[in-house]
């Protein structure tokens, strides 16, 4: 059994949004839809001020509230930990959006393009009408994980089967891998560091770990 997780080292993240942009081009999300982004969170008062940069996206919870409330079973949790949406089944009721405490999901009702009413060639090539009117979110680049299952490559180690955001991250903040494998990069990293998960008190068991200090 595998459990794919992401470990994000907040000590490294500089909030540059490279992952945001990489996700947008890889997954061809329309303007305004960000399956992932980096929060720029200021706290404190002058002059004792902090800014923290926190990449957020679907947390692929082990106990996903979105899956529980989905009336159609479009949202499912896979055995390997990925929370998926079947665009052919989803009715776009948005109940999952209300259930998700991570603001990870959105619904786009109409086609939108970066420059006006017409798609650029790059947008036209990637346009997917199935994504209109249904909930969409970060997939952990599901196709790549599925490819790994076929090829035997290791997500998190082999770029071809690693989520685009992790590949793109320039600060080395983002890591991906199998938590059930004690030798995986994420297991090792999490063993050496202090970390938390977002809104743990809600019992969602997220698969995204935030590293904030060494052990």
């Amino acid at each position, binding site marked *: 059994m595998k459990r794919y997780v992401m470990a994000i080292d907040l000590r490294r993240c*500089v*909030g*540059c949004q*490279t992952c945001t942009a990489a996700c947008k081009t890889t997954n061809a999300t329309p303007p305004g839809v960000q399956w992932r982004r980096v929060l720029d969170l200021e706290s404190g008062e*002058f*002059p004792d001020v902090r800014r923290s940069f926190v990449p957020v996206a679907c947390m692929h919870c082990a106990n996903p509230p979105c899956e529980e409330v989905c009336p159609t079973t479009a949202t499912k949790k896979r055995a390997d930990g990925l929370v998926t949406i079947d665009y052919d089944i989803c009715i776009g009721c948005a109940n999952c959006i209300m259930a998700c405490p991570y603001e990870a999901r959105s619904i786009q009702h109409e086609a939108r393009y970066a420059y006006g009413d017409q798609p*650029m060639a*790059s947008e036209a090539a990637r346009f997917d009408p199935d994504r209109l009117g249904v909930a969409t979110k970060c997939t952990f680049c599901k196709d790549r994980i599925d490819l790994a299952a076929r090829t035997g490559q290791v997500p998190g180690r082999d*770029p071809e089967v690693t989520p685009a955001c992790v590949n793109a991250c*320039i600060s080395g903040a983002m890591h991906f891998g199998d938590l059930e494998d004690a030798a995986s990069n994420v297991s090792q990293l999490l063993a050496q560091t202090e970390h938390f998960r977002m809104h743990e008190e809600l019992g969602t068991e997220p698969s995204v770990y935030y590293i904030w200090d060494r052990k």
Partner: protein
Amino acid sequence: MSQAKTVKHVPTFCYNCVSGPDFMKVKVEDGVATEVEPNFDAEDVHPARGRVCVKAYGLVQKTYNPNRIRTPMKRTNPKKGRDEDPGFVPISWDEALDLVAAKLKDIRARGLRDAAGQPRVAVSLGHGGTPANYLGTFPALLSAWGPIDYSFGSGQGVKCVHSEHLYGEFWHRGFTVAGDTPNARYVIAVGANVDVTGGPCAVLRHADARVRGYKRVQVEPHLTVTGACSAEWVPIRPKTDPAFLFALIHVLVREHGLAQLDLPFLRDRTASPYLVGPDGLYLRDADSDKPLLWDEASGKAVAHDTPGVVPAVAGRYRVARAASVDADQARREYADVEGATAYEMLSAHIAKYTPEWAETICDVPAATIRRIAEEYLEAASIGATIEIEGQTLPLRPVAVTLGKSVNNGWGAYECCWARTVLAVLVGALENPGGLVGTTVRLNRPQDNRHLSVKPGEDGFMVQYFNPTDKEHWQTEPATRNLHQTLVPIVGHNAAWSQALGPTQLAWMFQNERPAGWDMPTPNFPDLWIVYRSNPAISFWDTKNLAATAARFPYMVAFAYTVDETSHMADLLLPEATDLESTQMIRIGGTKYMEQFWDHKGVVLRQSAVEPQGDARDFTWITTELAKRSGLLTPYVEALNRGVSGVAPLKGEGYDFSLDPTQEPVPEKVWDAVCRAASVTISEGREELGLDWFKEHGFYAVPMSRLEWYLTPTMERQGLRYELPYQERLLRVGRELGNRLHEHKMNWWDEQLSEYTALPEWHDVPARWVRNLEKAGATAADFPFWLLTTKSMQYHAGGNAGIALMREVALNVRGHTGVIMNAKTAAGLGIREGDRIEVRSHIGATYGKAALVQGIRPDTLVIIGQFDHWATPVAKDLDLPSLNTIAPMTLDLTDATGSGADIVRVAVRRVDAEAKAAA
């Protein structure tokens, strides 16, 4: 999503900003570029492990942006101006090229220089030399042409780290200066916003350093991304950085003293032991004119290069006989004169700059300053060593890095000097862990700092200052920015010297000259060529600058979209952009920012997709222009010499040179460049053609990490760094003053005051206050400082019109308008998102208030350079810009010809109508 029939992953590079080049691949599906991806083939070669920053992900949109100019266009409205519709109409390439060729031929017939002796052709290239990585073989045509004026800057000189470029290169061949982050333990970053501007390489290295446990202290008026990612933020009052740095030196020198500093380094690698006489000049051997030092072994003053001496670093000594050499070789002879060592001079000079004094200037507690100095000293671990490739070198893991507006404009000389002295005091200059230069641009060769080091005068490395002696001083400036006339240190040895001159002077003096101008009156250039440059947005006083540009007789813009500068153009030429064209450049060796590599070689940018519309590869355009203007042979000969390429096309054991009588197709040019490059880099082992590079993208060989550090080279040559005492600058300044005053020109006197051997604190911020008062305004009416800061999402590369960048940039604080302190705003009745006016004494700019805690109450910050009115998309952003309201004036120009992005402003809440009325 339908499945693509063919999918390619094309290796290429991004060099949109000075932090490049970075490796990437472009995913091309059925001939359409759809994604940008890291190039993991380069993971072990590229310091950023094959990754590009956020900007590169906008290149797909940049390619297919419907607002692109897709065909050559000519102006039909002869009137030029912001309010004039240029009436651009499409024309054929034939017509466009013939128009330019006719201009060139006409100019050639009339003479390459005009009546004032200045080039008739001017070329403006944008951001930090990066256009060179996109303009194909155009440099070969420029080389074939002859004299060209690069004076009309788009911000270089004032928007770059100008003083660092000049003094860094002077002191330690560090055109750009960085900490040796891979080994760093303690970094004091004074405004250096490296996590935004340093590219993936710096971001990764600093992230590694954070996890390793280094400490970075960010000294800056507002909490930038880099400040956020630092261990400590010190919100210093704007432009008081010299005082802060002086106080650090004070703590080291006066409170800790020589015993705790790196005595061997100061003694052997610097001019600290050189004796300074009563006239402030070096005491020299009366016979040889060599600087003297005090030999502790023999107890007497001897020439600095006397074998076996043990120089005294501190102290004052009586010298029986000596001489000094002043400006214009004026000699003074001394007998029984007291000489203080240069270090002693420093020690005496810095005595008054206590942390308590600095507190009153900088608004930083003395205790904080003292603690930072002590942490720096402790982290320097003087005496420690590190083994690199079998060699034992000192390990001094501390650095002071400087940011834009700290290291340019008034006060920047002081800052650059102080931070280099701080490195010198602990032996961290050009040693592992310490402060290192990353490239040279004012010396040759560009790709090897070590080869640029040769013995020069007085035991220092050679310098190529512009002459200031009576015979050679340039009384009739060869360029419109007067770089050889006014700025000795910028030199004339390398191609970059001219562009590093005072570029705002070129703009200012087109309109009016200062009283007492005793030089030929400059003329507009007959032909102005602009590429990847938009000075009407990126310089200062942009409204007036655009109006000046509108008066230029003929402007050719290689234009991606219409913008605020090309709005004035006579001809627009669409070039194939980043993903559509081919070019090979060097990697490794030397680069800007923190791009010191473990490999060197070449990387190819290639046409991943066909150009949009009728856009053409720059090399094709250039070759056509060369042919049509009768310059084909010299152009091809320049190519053969290696101009535009990375190596001569003919060398020892190889010959890929092109026939100068034949017009070469671009593929043939780049194939020859590929072969010459691979043969030279592999030292003859491999010959790889364009097809190989198209598949593999790059070729690299290992580079020794020892190449990162200059000190071993200095040691081998027995040279000293020209620090801490600036005797040469003092002399040169006096000599320049003599020349100017002989011509009754006193308008540069304020700048001459910067030529000091040991910089003093002069109320730097007050210069801006005086400037507005001189203009008739009242200082109290403009109570705030306005600064700028860079945005990784927009920074360079013409990204203001890229929708994706807009979208993702909005996730980063401050990208909506004017960053201001929330408490200050509350006092002014300004709420988040309110529309506000930021007004200086020359104008106003408008935007939404973005309230934060992480900024000083007396400071406002506007990110980037906006306020567009012609560039599609960008003009709808409704974002403000400092450039609109920052004056361009001689008063705010320092001795190097630079200025800084800072202006006094007033701020108030306005509504939409007020803006319309304005």
